[in-house]
């Protein structure tokens, strides 16, 4: 029977059926469900690695050893794993090796909109791009065969709309693939200059041969029409709807590109367009082949994702009619107030960001739920670039400050009038790439304060275990990294654990540590409110008689606290988690939980 699978689930299923032995990944939207799905299937080893670089290296080792291996990551994760990828391309494989990489056109859950296809081009690694779940399943399976046949890692490129759409898939059984025998081969697997130069020539030849292979991955719809469209991935689905009568050349392998098929197709049509999201990757290649009449980005924006309407409007200039409100309604769709994501009611990060906003500190931030600390009402973040960057950035800001101060003869006065800089980073992100930044601060005599937001889980991507939680991906008990010991071991003397919900104490701790003239770490520890086992009991209530309408509780930005029409505050019982964080904000004792007697406690 056909199953309705997410693209990510279909990739997992395809890899499993291909007999994959080892899967190592770091979670990242929109790629996370691939590894989560595999971890629920038997006979395959799965792990969450500390970061994408390690996950790639584990997979490379498994493949050189003769097993079939896969590592999965989001587009920015491939930046982290790029170092091993580029050289693994030279060394080749033994057992099949697949990198599943999910781009996020339109930045649904990312900090940039990069186009991973250029990694395939510059690392000379074949790249496949499925357009629905059935192809995710098929391409994942074939990727392992391709990898072994051509002795190369293979990248399976996904995008959000392929990863997170469900469509029917005919699933099969697991094919038990014996591990390939391992033979020591220094010339192939030890990449020193002498060996790498020889491998470089082999990679060039592989590229040439695989251009022919790419011809086997094309699909031609409606041959012989006037308008020809070259496309791949999710855009193929949009093209089928917008240009139902056009000739369409759909590419399944997008590196190397199929030179012969593209030339023949171009010659068979009168008008040629390329429909692709993000950069003009295919279009540039077509031009490079001397096909000057091709158009693509002239019509279709390189920004964000495309869709049927964007493509239709860009090419035909027509707009699809939509339902309309009556004139008398006095309402327009734009009147719907924005609904940005917010920290959940009961979120432990709220304590940290409320404190930082009160202290008006300069805050370098990082990637996770807590990036929402940059949003109103806290606005307590000054910069956020990539995983782990918060710690390096705070060190850099402080060093720039101290040089400027010394040169100006300004003594200890902060030239920007800012009280101090702190770095905030989550537990999983700290392990991912924050720890090296902390080593740097200690080594180079910095004095930054780092706040590790330890909520006992990888939150934003949907609760994955990590090295600090004491559980593996399959929920087996394992040794948890002790963050306090780790920070002390690299040379931080001032390490303290604080509860971010104890506002007074937490504020005092931050003030003390930013004044210290040496590196310091505050571990703000309280579990994510969405974790199983976190139960704060019944909701709090606001005693209307005691409420003086001061609005102090509203400053926390908790979605469960609302202002009523008479100006008093009230609690939305359906949202309140009962965490009681807001109780300490009220100077009039108006907030509390009802006790048996009926009074607020």
């Amino acid at each position, binding site marked *: 029977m*056909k199953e*309705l699978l997410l693209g990510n689930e279909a990739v997992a299923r395809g890899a499993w059926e291909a007999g994959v032995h080892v899967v190592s990944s770091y979670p990242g939207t929109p790629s996370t469900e691939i590894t989560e799905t595999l971890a629920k299937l038997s006979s395959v080893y799965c792990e969450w690695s500390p970061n994408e670089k390690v996950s790639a290296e584990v997979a490379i080792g498994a493949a050189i050893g003769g097993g079939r291996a896969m590592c999965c990551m989001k587009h920015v994760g491939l930046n982290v794993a790029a170092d091993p990828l580029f050289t693994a391309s030279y060394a080749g494989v033994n057992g099949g090796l697949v990198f599943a990489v999910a781009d996020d056109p339109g930045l649904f859950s990312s900090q940039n909109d990069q186009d991973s296809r250029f990694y395939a081009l510059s690392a000379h690694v074949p790249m496949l791009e499925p357009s629905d779940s059935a192809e995710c399943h098929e391409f994942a399976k074939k990727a392992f065969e391709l990898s072994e046949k051509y002795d190369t890692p293979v990248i399976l490129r996904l995008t959000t709309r392929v990863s997170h759409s469900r469509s029917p898939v005919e699933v099969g059984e697991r094919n038990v693939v014996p591990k390939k025998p391992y033979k020591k081969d220094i010339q192939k697997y030890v990449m020193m200059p002498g060996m790498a130069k020889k491998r470089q020539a082999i990679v060039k030849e592989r590229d040439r041969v695989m251009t022919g292979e790419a011809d086997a991955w094309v699909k031609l719809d409606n041959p012989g029409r006037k308008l020809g469209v070259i496309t791949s991935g999710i855009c193929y689905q*949009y093209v089928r709807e917008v240009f139902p009568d056009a000739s369409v050349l759909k590419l399944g392998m997008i590196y190397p590109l199929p030179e012969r098929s593209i030339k023949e197709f171009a010659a068979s049509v009168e008008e040629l367009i390329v429909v692709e999201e993000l950069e003009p990757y295919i279009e540039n290649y077509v031009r490079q082949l001397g096909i000057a009449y091709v158009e693509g980005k002239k019509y279709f924006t390189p920004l964000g994702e495309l869709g049927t309407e964007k493509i239709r409007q860009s090419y035909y200039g027509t*707009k699809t009619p939509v339902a309309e*409100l009556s004139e008398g309604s006095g309402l327009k769709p734009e009147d719907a107030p924005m*609904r940005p994501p*917010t920290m959940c009611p009961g979120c432990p990060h709220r304590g940290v960001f409320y404190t930082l906003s009160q202290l008006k500190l300069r805050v370098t931030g990082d990637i996770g739920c807590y990036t929402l600390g940059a949003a109103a009402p806290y606005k307590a973040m000054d910069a956020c670039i990539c995983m782990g960057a918060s710690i390096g950035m705070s060190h850099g800001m402080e060093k720039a400050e101290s040089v400027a101060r010394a040169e100006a003869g300004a003594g200890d006065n902060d030239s920007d009038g800012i009280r101090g800089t702190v770095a905030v980073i989550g537990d999983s992100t700290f392990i991912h790439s924050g720890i090296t930044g902390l080593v740097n601060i200690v080594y180079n005599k910095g004095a930054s304060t780092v706040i590790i937001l330890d909520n006992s889980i990888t939150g934003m991507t949907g609760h994955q275990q990590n090295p600090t939680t004491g559980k593996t991906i399959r929920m087996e008990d394992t040794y948890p990294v002790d963050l306090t010991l780790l920070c002390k071991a690299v040379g931080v003397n001032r390490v303290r654990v604080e509860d971010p919900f104890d506002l007074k104490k937490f504020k005092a701790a931050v003030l003390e540590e930013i004044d210290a003239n040496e590196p310091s770490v505050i571990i703000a520890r309280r579990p994510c409110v969405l974790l199983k086992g976190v139960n704060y009991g019944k909701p709090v209530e606001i005693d209307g008689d005691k409420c003086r309408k001061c609005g102090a509780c509203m400053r926390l930005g908790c979605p469960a606290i609302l*202002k009523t029409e008479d100006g008093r505050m009230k609690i939305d019982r359906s949202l309140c988690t009962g965490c009681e964080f807001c109780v300490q904000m009220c100077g009039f004792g108006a907030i509390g939980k009802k006790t048996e007697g009926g009074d607020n406690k």
Partner: protein
Amino acid sequence: MKQDELNILIIGVGGQGTLLASRFLGDVALRLGRDVKVSEVHGMSQRGGSVETCVRIGENVASPIIDRGMADVVLSFESVEALRALEYLKPGGTVIMNTQEILPMPVISGAAVYPDNVPERLSGGNFRVIALDALSIAEKCGSAKCVNVVLLGILSAVIPGIAPDVWRQSLESVVPAKLLETNRRAFEEGIKAAE
């Protein structure tokens, strides 16, 4: 709506159970032997943000996304979200909406205004509006979390041509066994409310 094609856009607030609703509809389509694509939203926007999922059922569905003016039905879990989703609705389409209001953070903080009487003001446009207090119905059935299934019950009564048994089988396959009784009640109450 065309006999062979049905586009349903589901919109709600992160945490309201829109994902289960879209999987439910996907399962219904598979049981009918139709082609189907469902697009979901994961990650950042699930944290209390506005969440859209699309279900497209037909003979041969290409894009998984319901774009501007493509939806036959907008199934809205929250009042103002129905307004937000109007640009996806075809002229002559149907809005099925829960009248519950969940205030967005910019409204709570005073930076934006939540419009009054959204359900009443929606009616009168060139589309049909079915507005019900699905939260109260769900609470009566035993769990506020069943809002999604109440709305699906309403939907099942509104779209023609699908046997009640298919809906019930799908409900059993997507809802965990221990929650099935409550959800069955919620589904049946949804059907009744639509009448």
